[in-house]
């Protein structure tokens, strides 16, 4: 356990990096995914096409490739990211938004069509119907799948380690090199740090799920 206290500072900073990668990307992906799904169910055909195109491109591209593109490919289109952290967040957000949109779309499909019909019959326009009636109900049914997306995102942050962001996985590489005799302890510590993010999430997802459940 000696190495733990010796490297606590590195581990702690790496943990915070992983956590903020996940949380920041999670929020961005949620916002972008919501916009995408709004486009996808809108009556405007070009918007629907654009959103479908986006989702299919990012859902079917390996995340590592998205990282590669943003770190090394975008120089061609003259985009400068202020830091590697921001680049990593962008890659994670763009990628995860596609999955958020798909999860939300399944939720929207689970809302009985009569709900939107009743809203339209009252005189609510498309946006109001989506915001006040359909999405709030869709979010409730998608808490479990969104939870899966979140946990996948928390683990996907590890790809940033390959792009010189000092997250938990990067710390793992560094510590493993320096402590070859205590490999098992190093792994255990890093895995425990990931669990510190994902396990409370799983618990929180269950709580939220019960809290927002609606009886039909």
């Amino acid at each position: 356990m000696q190495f733990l206290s010796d490297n606590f500072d590195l581990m702690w900073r790496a943990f915070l990096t992983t956590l903020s990668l996940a949380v920041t990307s999670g929020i961005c992906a949620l916002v972008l995914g919501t916009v995408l799904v709004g486009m996808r169910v809108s009556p405007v055909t070009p918007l629907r096409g654009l959103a479908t195109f986006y989702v299919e491109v990012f859902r079917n591209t390996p995340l590592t490739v998205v990282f590669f593109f943003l770190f090394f490919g975008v120089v061609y289109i003259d985009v400068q990211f202020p830091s590697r952290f921001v680049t990593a967040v962008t890659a994670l957000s763009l990628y995860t938004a596609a999955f958020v949109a798909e999860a939300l779309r399944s939720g929207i499909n689970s809302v009985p069509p009569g709900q939107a019909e009743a809203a339209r019959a009252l005189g609510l326009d498309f946006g109001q119907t989506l915001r006040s009636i359909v999405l709030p109900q869709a979010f409730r049914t998608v808490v479990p799948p969104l939870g899966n997306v979140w946990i996948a995102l928390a683990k996907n942050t590890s790809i940033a380690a390959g792009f010189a962001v000092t997250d938990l996985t990067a710390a793992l590489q560094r510590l493993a090199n320096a402590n070859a005799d205590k490999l098992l302890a190093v792994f255990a510590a890093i895995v425990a740090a990931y669990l510190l993010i994902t396990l409370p999430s799983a618990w929180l997802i269950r709580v939220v799920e019960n809290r927002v459940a609606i009886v039909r």
Partner: protein
Amino acid sequence: MTSAAKGEPLVRLSGVDKWFGELHVLQDIDLSIDRGEVVVVIGPSGSGKSTLCRTINRLESIQQGEISIDGQRLPEEGKELAHLRSDVGMVFQSFNLFAHKTILQNVTLGPIKVRGKSKAEAERRARELLDRVGVSAQADKYPAQLSGGQQQRVAIARALAMDPKVMLFDEPTSALDPEMINEVLDVMISLARDGMTMIVVTHEMGFARRAANRVVFMDGGRIVESADPETFFTRPQSDRAKDFLSKILNH
């Protein structure tokens, strides 16, 4: 038959045609409804009566013809359509109360979001309406906690909260247990007595006899017969109406 007509008809359908794919569900429909008139639409299932009801606020689009409400032609899409819909109350067979909102919120949503009323004002009016339909005690519950009859009465209150010019009822009692039908019909009858313009698709012949000014009989996507209830029920003109009535009345 008493005619409550004042000038122009409130709802006018002329030459309306609609297809679902190959199926010609509405065929050359002409129908005018005057202010304060209660029109009951009956007919066998698949006759197009629900579709007709749903075209009036454009929940179903039409391929030919014209529908106008209060002299204004139904817009195709967008804000104008939303605005026009806000003047047309609709009550559905399956109630369609917003599942994630309380009874009170169900009734205040439209006035707040569409009419721009203050929350306090909308709630005051909502409680009045809930009281009128007899469910004021349930104001803070969620729809699933109410019986079908109560839910449908809330749905009526929700539509009334918009102060609509006309109310559409699409088989409002068809999804209800028999013992709950009358509580909904009573509310509808009192509405009719108060002079609300109503278009009611229903199988409740008792309601048609008691509250309707006119019965419209549909079959195969066409309006086959249109008469006051007394005439229609005692001396139907067409064979199809006679056949339909003999099937539903002789039990």
